């Protein structure tokens, strides 16, 4: 099935009977930068930190078994 070219948000807003302000509000949300990272570490550092933690946990678990 062949569809039409993609409508703009404003065209769709009209089809849906929405006000231009509503379209603007959604545009604003989508253009805002995403939430900041919570860990504060870079991806590489975070991976290293979590790997170390898990290794410590495994060692601790092995010792506990003995």
């Amino acid at each position, binding site marked *: *099935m*062949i*569809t*039409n*070219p*993609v*409508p*703009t*948000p404003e*065209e*769709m*807003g009209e*089809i*849906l009977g*929405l006000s231009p302000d*509503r*379209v603007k*509000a*959604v*545009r604003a*949300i*989508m*253009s*805002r930068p*995403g*939430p900041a990272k919570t860990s504060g570490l870079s991806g590489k550092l975070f991976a290293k930190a979590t790997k170390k933690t898990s290794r410590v946990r495994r060692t601790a678990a092995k010792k506990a078994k003995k």
Partner: protein
Amino acid sequence: MPRKSRVKSVFLNIPYDTPFESLFVAYVVGLTQLGLHINAALAVANQGRLETIIDLIEKSDFSIHDLSRVELSHGVPRFNMPVELGLALYRSRVTRGEHRIFIFDRNRRQAQRSTSDVNGIDPQIHNGTVKGLMSGLRNILRQPRDMTTVPEMLASFRAVQRKLPELRRNAGSKSLFEPAIFQDLTLASLVESQRLIAQRRAGHAV
């Protein structure tokens, strides 16, 4: 500038419940990004449900029926999706096939067993995944010059999903299955779509 052609519309028949939220967003993003206007019962508040569904099917160019969740709910089979499929099949018959029907399901075996009467319609199998769903939509829908790719659709899906809490707050919706957030999801998908189109043009210009 006024639009030259009418936007084609699709009747979307899917389960409206929390475990299906991710695929619901994927349907909205995927179909919108492929240039369609979605007609769904949830977008029309406080109306006679059956009348609304019949009206929506009648004004849609085709329909998509996701039968992946036709199962027991609190001991009762969920008949809504098959009932709506039946209405669309009748619509297809009276329009001599002009109203086309597409079925989506989780796996092929389930599709063949649950709706053996419509085995003539080849179902699109999404395996319950967003990627599977986007691939299914690309299998059945083509755009002029056929541009949108599955990775692009997935990128848009992720972008819209990241903004869901904010979109939901903005629409004042407790659930995703309410008219206001449904409309905003459509607009958000189109904003992402425009961004992609602009990126493509910039890529071609280099």
